[in-house]
């Protein structure tokens, strides 16, 4: 079965339609309207999951690419949407996370944050989906901005002092990164005369080396700061712990990974040679990101702050996958990339589950403070929540048989195969430190006795809707560990398609009618 390429527009259009209509439906602000919005969001996210699975089937299982030329405009002139295996995998994971987050929000949102939470979530989904499908640099920028706009508002929903302060930093640093991105787009268009990625891949080959280095460096800065890479990650721990736990969970699962996706896409398609030349740089950034994240996690003392620092250290592992993509022989290239992609899959699921569980604990006990015994005794009070948190933390730390073990093993093997001893050692060290940090979370946060109470009585987590989505994610994570063959095969297909640049260019088939402007004088 092969589906029509027009389906590619659906992951963008479905959330947009439902978000707009749920804004229209909710004319007044009350609980009943909130329920209408939530139901619309639930329908939209399930529909989106269906479409994503269709795309997954026809790109990953059948190993092909799908291209939509909007309005039948020839490639470099119109808007092109491209779905290959990596896009489809990312779309599917996003869709799964969206369904679970809507369920989780039923159990945890109160009226203060519930106002227009769901339409904003759908706008976020639209931006993320669009970024995964975009076939040209400018649309990538636009969809980045769509998802950032939605995330700005989601982050400050509720308007508390901490949120406003964190939100300021988040907005300013992300706007700066976007501006760098736009500058790069301007430079690229001014010199190479095109923005279409496939067309750029053709023209970038004959472009002077200086230009390639400038463009690649600026894109690395732009995407790197969105992904939270080493010197540019400060906005993340400053803001991620401030909003409602549902918002933190979806941010932690999705946003930095869009930056990572863009890095994977751009570097494999436009700069395969730089991938080799810049290997020390990429691996160095990866190592420093891992270390900075894990050491930061040791220095902070609330559940969600610890977990947001771990996002950074995990992003380092993904960049490690990208860095290992450039080793000599053809086989190892695919293996490093595939390990990186598998790591992204594992991370999106597990991180969201952990942030959801940690957020539920914070909401229930009224504080996320790990010191002074505010949180102890969760194991006895809410054993199911504690058990799920334990399993997710287990997976994040990379113990068998979870998905974390398989993905870290894959990366380690890729590093050893290409004889990158330093990065292998760092990844092992960070893995051990992550385990230590998870043990600390468990001991201070869940086990032990409660000495002090922030709330007079702990609020009961509303079990069905708070726990069920976390359970779904943990089960998926365990499944990815136990039936890892299938998922590794998927990521190998995705990596294979990333390496096959000629296939991508051929699928989009840009016509090369007009000479680049910059070349004429």
């Amino acid at each position, binding site marked *: 079965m092969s589906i029509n390429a027009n389906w590619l527009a659906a992951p963008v259009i479905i959330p947009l339609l439902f978000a707009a209509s749920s804004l229209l439906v909710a004319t007044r602000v009350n609980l009943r309207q909130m329920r209408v919005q939530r139901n619309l969001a639930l329908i939209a996210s399930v529909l989106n999951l269906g479409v994503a699975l269709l795309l997954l089937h026809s790109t990953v299982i059948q190993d092909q690419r799908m291209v939509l030329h909007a309005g039948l405009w020839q490639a470099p002139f119109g808007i092109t949407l491209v779905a290959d295996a990596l896009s489809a995998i990312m779309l599917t994971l996003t869709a799964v996370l969206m369904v679970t987050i809507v369920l989780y929000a039923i159990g945890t949102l109160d009226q*203060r944050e519930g106002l227009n939470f769901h339409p904003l979530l759908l706008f976020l989904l639209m931006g993320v989906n669009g970024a995964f499908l975009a076939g040209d640099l*400018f649309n990538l*920028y*636009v969809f980045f*901005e769509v998802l*950032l*706009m939605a995330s*700005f*508002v989601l982050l*400050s929903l509720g*308007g*508390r*002092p*901490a949120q*406003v*302060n964190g*939100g*300021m930093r988040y*907005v*300013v640093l992300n*706007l*700066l990164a*976007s*501006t760098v991105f*736009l*500058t790069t*787009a*301007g*430079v690229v*268009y*001014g010199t190479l005369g095109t923005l279409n990625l496939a067309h750029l891949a053709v023209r970038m080959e004959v472009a002077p080396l200086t230009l390639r280095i400038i463009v690649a460096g600026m894109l690395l800065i732009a995407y790197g700061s969105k992904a939270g890479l080493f010197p540019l990650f400060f906005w993340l721990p400053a803001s991620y*712990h*401030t909003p409602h736990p549902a918002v933190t969970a979806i941010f932690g699962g999705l946003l930095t990974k869009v930056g990572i996706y863009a890095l994977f896409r751009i570097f494999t398609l436009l700069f395969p040679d730089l991938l080799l030349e810049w290997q020390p740089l990429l691996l160095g950034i990866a190592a420093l990101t891992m270390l900075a994240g894990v050491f930061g996690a040791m220095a902070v003392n*609330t559940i969600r702050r610890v977990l947001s620092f771990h996002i950074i250290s995990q992003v380092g592992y993904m960049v490690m996958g990208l860095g290992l993509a450039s080793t000599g022989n053809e086989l190892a290239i695919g293996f490093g990339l595939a390990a990186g992609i598998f790591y992204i899959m594992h991370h999106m699921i597990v991180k969201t589950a952990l942030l959801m569980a940690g957020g539920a604990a*914070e*909401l229930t006990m*009224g*504080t*996320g*403070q790990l010191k*002074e*015994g505010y949180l102890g005794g969760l194991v006895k009070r809410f054993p199911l929540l504690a058990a799920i948190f334990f399993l997710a933390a287990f997976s994040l730390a990379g113990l068998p048989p979870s998905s974390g073990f398989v993905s870290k093993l894959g990366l380690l093997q890729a590093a050893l195969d290409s004889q990158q001893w330093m990065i292998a050692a760092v990844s092992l060290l960070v893995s051990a430190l992550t385990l230590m940090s998870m043990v600390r979370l468990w001991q201070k946060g869940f086990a032990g006795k409660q*000495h*002090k109470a*922030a*709330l*007079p009585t702990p*609020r009961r987590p509303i079990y069905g809707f708070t726990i069920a989505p976390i359970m779904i994610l943990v089960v998926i994570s365990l499944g990815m560990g136990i039936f890892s063959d299938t998922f590794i095969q998927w990521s190998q297909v995705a990596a294979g398609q990333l390496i096959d640049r000629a296939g991508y260019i051929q699928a989009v088939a840009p016509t090369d009618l*007009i000479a680049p*402007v910059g070349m*004429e004088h």
Partner: protein
Amino acid sequence: MIALVFAVLVAVLMGSATYLLLQRNPVRMVIGLGLFTHAVNLLVFSTSVSHRGQPPIVVDKAAFNGDISQFVDPLPQALILTAIVISFGIVAFLIALLHRRNSLEAVESCTDRVDDPFAMESTTALEAVEEDYEWLEDVVLKRELRKPKGKRK
């Protein structure tokens, strides 16, 4: 020549934007961001090669031979239009956030009231704790720190 003018303009705008961004005052930071986005818009505009001078409209279709070297490239203007809308929206949101921040400074003084050991037992304070755990957590901690060392657990 025009290219040089554009380059100097972009450089001046970016330079002043960077200077403003490095200030502590958040209002200046917002103005700096606005300037920065304008600088980039100008940079994108400069790629449309306006020295060619002709609007990209074919008046006499029969005489047109496919030579487009006299036409200005219209695409960068479309790109800028999108970019202007986006940056305008974000700067507007940033200003709203700034306004919220300023109005919250009044609230900050309310936290002092909760911080008062005598006011803590009142019902309003407890409700506030329940509604606003993250923010009040700092307050609770601060109160703990103020106690003499022996009393801390």
